[in-house]
């Protein structure tokens, strides 16, 4: 199966690899995994006082498509509000990367990582 040029580009030059302190209240952490292939993805968003995502980092153990999906998402979410970021769908991700049907679950993983991060941020910031 051939990877698209965009997948290869993100795979070879992943954007925003790394971590933020997960205990920082302005950091949202989304951990998700795909049982189908055993891929694990961590997406972290740094959110400013206005609820805008100022920075994003990821760490993914998985195939090229999973790495590309998370790398792409870190670029896309920057500058968006949480609400806007929550609307990013797996179909947009898979279309942008030209993922074949067997790799759609990688884009689902990235979408769910954003949603999990948003949930984490909400639960962190409404607890008190």
């Amino acid at each position, binding site marked *: 199966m051939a990877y698209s040029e965009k997948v290869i580009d993100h795979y070879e030059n992943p954007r925003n690899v790394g971590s933020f302190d997960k205990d920082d209240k302005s950091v949202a952490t989304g*951990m*998700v*995994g*795909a*049982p*189908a*292939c*055993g*891929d*694990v993805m*961590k997406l972290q968003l740094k959110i400013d006082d206005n609820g805008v995502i100022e920075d994003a980092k990821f*760490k993914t*153990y998985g195939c090229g498509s999973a790495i590309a999906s998370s790398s792409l998402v870190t670029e896309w979410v920057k500058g968006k509000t949480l609400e806007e970021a929550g609307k990013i769908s797996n179909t947009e991700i898979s279309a942008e990367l030209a993922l074949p049907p067997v790799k*759609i*679950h990688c884009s*689902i*993983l990235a979408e*769910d990582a954003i949603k*999990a991060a948003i949930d984490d941020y909400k639960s962190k910031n409404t607890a008190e």
Partner: protein
Amino acid sequence: MNYFELFSLPALFSVDQTRLSVTYRELQKQYHPDKFAMHSDSERLAAMQKSTEINDAYQTLKNSCLRAQYLLLLNGLDIALEQRTLQDTSFLMQQMEWRETIASFTEDDEDEIEAFAENIEEQVQDLESEIALQLQEKQLEAAADSVRKLKFMLKLKIELDLLEEKLFD
């Protein structure tokens, strides 16, 4: 006839692997294409289909993860092709840590790698015992979750095997 019936085994998660391979060889012999060379086309085709089914059954029953998935399927829960994600944070954090550990190993870490592999093997066995119990008590959703976790553990084992090949072969 389901795969367990085909192999005359009880439909349980614990499978007698010796009996499984013995029955597999017997069945294979019984339906071997050579035995049907002089038969009609339709009989040859039927034997070939049976032989394929025997192979599929054997592959499924031999592998703990596929076997558990098959038992879930027999109970009406099909998780084989699902695309859902797992969101158990502490489990996934642990997975991530283990993947990081694997990525950090070098050829000087032979002992550490061995200890690590043993630990992973123990975790897999614990998870398999849990699955056996959950299936036995028909806690299907819980069993399905354990099978999903088992898939991550098996992926971890593959990563570890690849690393060992790269470092020591």
